[in-house]
């Protein structure tokens, strides 16, 4: 099912690092290409705090939650 979602971000933290590209490559499916700088890749920790998540078409109830993404 495809859902278009409207989310009010309370805030979003993006914490960025760089590591040797070869070290990160094994976390990826082969059809994705790492963007690198000087042999280093740039992973991010993404932490959105979401208030009032709503699904646009079917009236999904509003919910609040925090997420962590690597």
């Amino acid at each position: 099912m495809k859902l278009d979602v409207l989310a009010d971000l309370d805030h979003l933290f993006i914490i960025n690092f760089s590591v040797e590209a070869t070290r990160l490559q094994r976390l990826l499916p082969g059809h994705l290409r790492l963007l690198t700088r000087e042999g280093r890749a740039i992973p991010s920790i993404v932490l959105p705090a979401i208030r009032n998540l709503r699904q646009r078409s079917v009236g999904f109830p509003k919910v609040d939650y925090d997420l962590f993404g690597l």
Partner: protein
Amino acid sequence: MEYESSQLGLTKGIYFSRLIMDPNHVRRVANMLMAFDFERGTITRQTTGENSTDVTVTLPSGKNLFHANVHTSGEFPFALTEGSCFESADEALAMYNDIAYGFVSSADAQSMHILQIAEPHPNYEAWPLLHLEVNRDSIIIPTELADAEVQLEPSYYVGQLPRYWRWLKTERVESKSPASAPK
């Protein structure tokens, strides 16, 4: 990352190798209805001072997967973190400003789900990425990177804004072998 999308062409975005959500009904519903597979975990944000926050992600086992003490500031620094792979703070900001898509691979890696930040399209003049100061000594990094030499790079935050996220059509991942290349 870059991904050669059949819908979008060569597209830059974030690949999510791991996603965690608090163990509530939202996680179960999201796992049923979306391409995401959210693991159980607890995400806490605790104010520790003026504009200062402790962020912690804890697994059900009790292990801290991630921790950082961060400080939000309206001022954008002109200096980079020591050892950064960028040449200037503006160059780093430009790279992160340009991201409007997220990628989630299917479990068998044969399909790619694409999440578009549709509205507002990243408009960092109206809603700029602001500098996020990260206390280097406070960081606990995820296991996946634990044995790597990790360099802290410029980090950012955005404040309150609405986001309209759209799932694009799931794509079958094309084989790169000549015999099955698209014509």
